[in-house]
């Protein structure tokens, strides 16, 4: 128990050390930091060494410290995120309303697809609350669409690194089949996954591009097979593509460069 209490205080003290740094007092020596936070010099030294190693503090030539660029990276995350939230949320809300199903905006991370936002539909039966935030890429429509636009090398690396585990009745587990499917997705500009991750569940996704012209996100709609029937797939695709174009434009994508 004692050890746990100590752990907490070391974190608290580490953060207090960081917060000593201000525009007026941007440079601190070890002794001053220890004094101000109320630590022995050796404890302060240990915490400072950790913060230094992780890039939160940088050491000057005179042995004193200033804040490191790791903090800047955290700042960048906040601002980048706020902008993405702002741009995509209204579009997703409108789309969920129009389709009457749950929609997501997804990005690729490692070998997984992660959704940044989910806007729930107003349907009384939401079968899909158990679908997690992080899903394998090969059996979700968003994952496949993001993978399809990654380029040949990235796809090959993905296939080398990942076993195509079976999740639903229709999961594609053969690498050759997946490659064919990805090529088809790129040609047609959308992907549909019927019962590839969960039985009775359909998802449809389209790519979103940003100012670089590259595909950086995917918008997907997910729902039960009973409601999202095959004869309506083309309607879903068209509606998704409309929203995709709108968001891509907001992200700085130039319309004249057509996808796929």
């Amino acid at each position, binding site marked *: 128990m004692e050890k*746990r209490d*100590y*752990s*907490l205080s*070391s*974190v*608290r003290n*580490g*953060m207090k050390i960081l*917060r000593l*740094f*201000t*525009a007026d007092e*941007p440079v601190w020596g070890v002794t001053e930091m220890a004094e101000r936070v109320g630590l022995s010099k050796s404890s302060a030294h240990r*915490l400072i060494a*950790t*913060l230094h190693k*992780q*890039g*939160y503090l940088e050491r000057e030539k005179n042995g004193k410290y200033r*804040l*490191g*660029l*790791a*903090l*800047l*990276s*955290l*700042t*960048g*995350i*906040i*601002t*980048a*995120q706020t*902008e*993405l939230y702002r741009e995509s949320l209204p579009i997703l809300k409108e789309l969920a309303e129009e389709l009457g199903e749950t929609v997501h905006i997804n*990005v690729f*991370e490692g070998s997984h697809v*992660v959704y*940044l936002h989910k806007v729930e539909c107003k349907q009384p039966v939401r079968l899909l609350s158990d679908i997690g*935030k992080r899903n394998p890429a090969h059996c979700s429509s968003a994952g496949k669409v993001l993978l399809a*636009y*990654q*380029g*040949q*090398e*990235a796809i090959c*690396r993905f296939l080398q690194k990942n076993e195509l585990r079976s999740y639903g009745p229709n999961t594609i587990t053969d690498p050759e089949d997946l490659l064919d499917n990805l090529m088809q997705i790129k040609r047609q500009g959308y992907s549909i996954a019927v019962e590839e991750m969960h039985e009775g569940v359909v998802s449809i996704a389209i790519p979103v591009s*940003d*100012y*670089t*012209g*590259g595909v*950086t996100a995917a918008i997907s709609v997910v729902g039960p097979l009973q409601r999202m029937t095959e004869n309506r797939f083309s309607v879903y695709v068209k509606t998704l593509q409309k929203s995709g174009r709108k968001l891509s434009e*907001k*992200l*700085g994508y*130039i319309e004249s*460069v057509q996808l796929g």
Partner: protein
Amino acid sequence: MRFTSLENALRLLDLLSVDEPELGIYEMAERLGIADSTAHRLATTLMSEGFITQDPNTKLYRLGASVLALGHVVTGQSKLYTASKAALQLLVNQSNETAHIGVLREFDVVYLNKIECSHPIRLLSHLGKRNPVHCTSSGQVLLAHQPSSYINAFLQRGLEQYTSRTITDPAALLKRLERIKEQGFSFCEEEMHEGASSLSAPVRNRKGQVTACVTLAGPMQRINQYTASKLVKLIIQTANEISKQLDCAGR
């Protein structure tokens, strides 16, 4: 591997990335390989110091305002940031592309400043983002001007492939670095992201050492071999202006 509590706290902050800005306590515990109760204690402590905050409805955690404040301290304090701000803005106005100031940290390039062009958003880079050195124009121009001991140490780490155009052969990279030094700028097309290209020029400190770079990045439709010569002129002008400002600031 065992981590101290502070290390785990910093690892927890690192989990909150651009791709996943919000996480729940169980996810954080799982990713860090620690007990739920430990994660909870870490989160509570970080929250009490303002480094993370919790959404009252979803109970998910995200980075807090303290981080923003400290980020301002970093940029406000940086001579390079201050000396480059005006010139970088001018470059964005002239080129209508997104401009960055890059510096080396260990074996990555980090963006110390970034000014957007009129396109409202970008997903590939953000302030403080760390990028690989060998497949970005910023990394290459900085690497080209490092001592050979640094370059050799870097090459020994291996050159990871990002696209079909990434240079993965050390000899080919060395050749490229030589050319960059001769021509005074670097130009990368699709070496890290398909469809994206960038141009960089070196910034020098008072002693003439290359300590930073100016970078324009954007889609290949706009930054390509046809537009490069005009843009190169602008970034070299900007880089020289920043070098001059740094020189003045140092006096």
